[in-house]
């Protein structure tokens, strides 16, 4: 089973549940982290969300179209489920997951050329607060680009937005990220 692609496994899973187990194992860790990053929920809540997402994916397996990457499709379902859950709990207020992922730091800081704009050490210290202050639409696009390392096409398929809009969102997200980062530098 390990030599099969995600798309092949998805097709087979619609007929045989055992194949779906393999798909879930491939995505469990990645999706759990993704959910934590964009939702900022407690780990146990994220796990509950992931269970609901996997069941949704299973039920909708026959809606999967091979013209899309399976990973984009599964991230799209996860994103939509998290956002719809986020809207429900919005009134309670959320906090961004405390990330310790080094690649994200490196990715986003090098892309933003943030060293010129803000003190690097200070920014690292406050990055979770900065992310917390970002609008959700900007946070999710930054997470997909710099944490999940998705390209524009994949982000477009996941967020179901045109490629141009993804580009615009990323630019605005970076701009807002830097503005908030500068604010923290001033306040420090």
């Amino acid at each position: 089973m390990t030599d099969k692609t995600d798309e092949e496994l998805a097709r087979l899973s619609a007929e045989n549940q055992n194949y779906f187990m393999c798909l879930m194992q491939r995505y469990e860790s990645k999706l759990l982290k993704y959910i934590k990053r964009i939702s900022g929920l407690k780990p146990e809540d994220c796990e509950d969300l992931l269970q609901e997402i996997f069941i949704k994916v299973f039920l909708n397996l026959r809606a999967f179209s091979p013209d899309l990457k399976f990973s984009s499709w599964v991230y799209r379902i996860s994103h939509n489920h998290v956002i719809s859950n986020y809207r429900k709990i919005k009134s309670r207020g959320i906090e961004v997951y405390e990330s310790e992922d080094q690649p994200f730091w490196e990715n986003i800081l090098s892309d933003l050329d943030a060293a010129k704009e803000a003190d690097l050490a200070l920014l690292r210290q406050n990055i979770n607060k900065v992310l917390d202050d970002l609008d959700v639409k900007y946070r999710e696009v930054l997470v997909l680009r710099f944490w999940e390392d998705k390209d524009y096409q994949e982000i477009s398929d996941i967020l179901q937005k045109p490629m141009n809009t993804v580009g615009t969102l990323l630019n605005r997200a970076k701009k807002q990220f830097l503005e908030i980062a500068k604010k923290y530098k001033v306040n420090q």
Partner: protein
Amino acid sequence: MEEEKKIPDGISAKVWQKIADKHLKPLPRWRFLVKELILWGLFFVFLLVASIACAFILLEFLNADWDLYPQLTGSLIDYITMIFPYFWLICLSVVVVLAYYNFSLTRRGYKYGLLWIFLGTVFLSGLLGAVLYFTNLGQWLDSISQEYLPKHRLMVSRQSELWNRPEEGWLGGQIIMIALPQFVEIKSFDNHEWLVVLPQNNQRVPLRVGEFIKILGSPIGPETFEAKEIRPWRSNDCPCCADHEESNESCKMETRQHFMPLPAPVK
């Protein structure tokens, strides 16, 4: 590898067990196909309504009395403002927004931006509207709406206001009685009944009870109007081709030649 790490809680195992316990099965493919078909069906319905709106807008503009605007309103802008079919424009706008929203919900709809979907819908509905108009379906729809919605014209355009000034020589309305060869009785847009004295050589303009007409002339009594020219409400309608037994090719080429000369400009 990150993905091969064992998750302590075993979420996959829990889900797998849940699927087995509840005997869950993937939803059948036809449900997704039906949903997609409904979305596309709705999109085409919206497109059709938008096309009808475009056909009516074309009908209004292409049948306007462009030769009379200096006398009717004094300026072209005022005339366009008066005859503009706002109702159909609003209708078109609403339907285009619905079509955009509907299209964006289709499987690949998200790939296209607002501008492209908007321009595409407007272009397609304009194209279909032109086809409707030039295949006479627009006129057919117009006559249907005229029959079933008597106040239809008042809703879609303020043309009726322009043709409801008998003292200035402009009278419009619906024929309620015909006493050929010399008289017809019409009900104007403010519900007054007028006896219209027909011009001598009007035999080629179709006069039927229920038809809307425009009359250029002057009042000769409190409820009597002497016509110098009679036009069908839609100026580009081709009355002799449509209503006369013998087909006349020339009238298809130039409708105006059937009408009588214009009166002197109204001050």
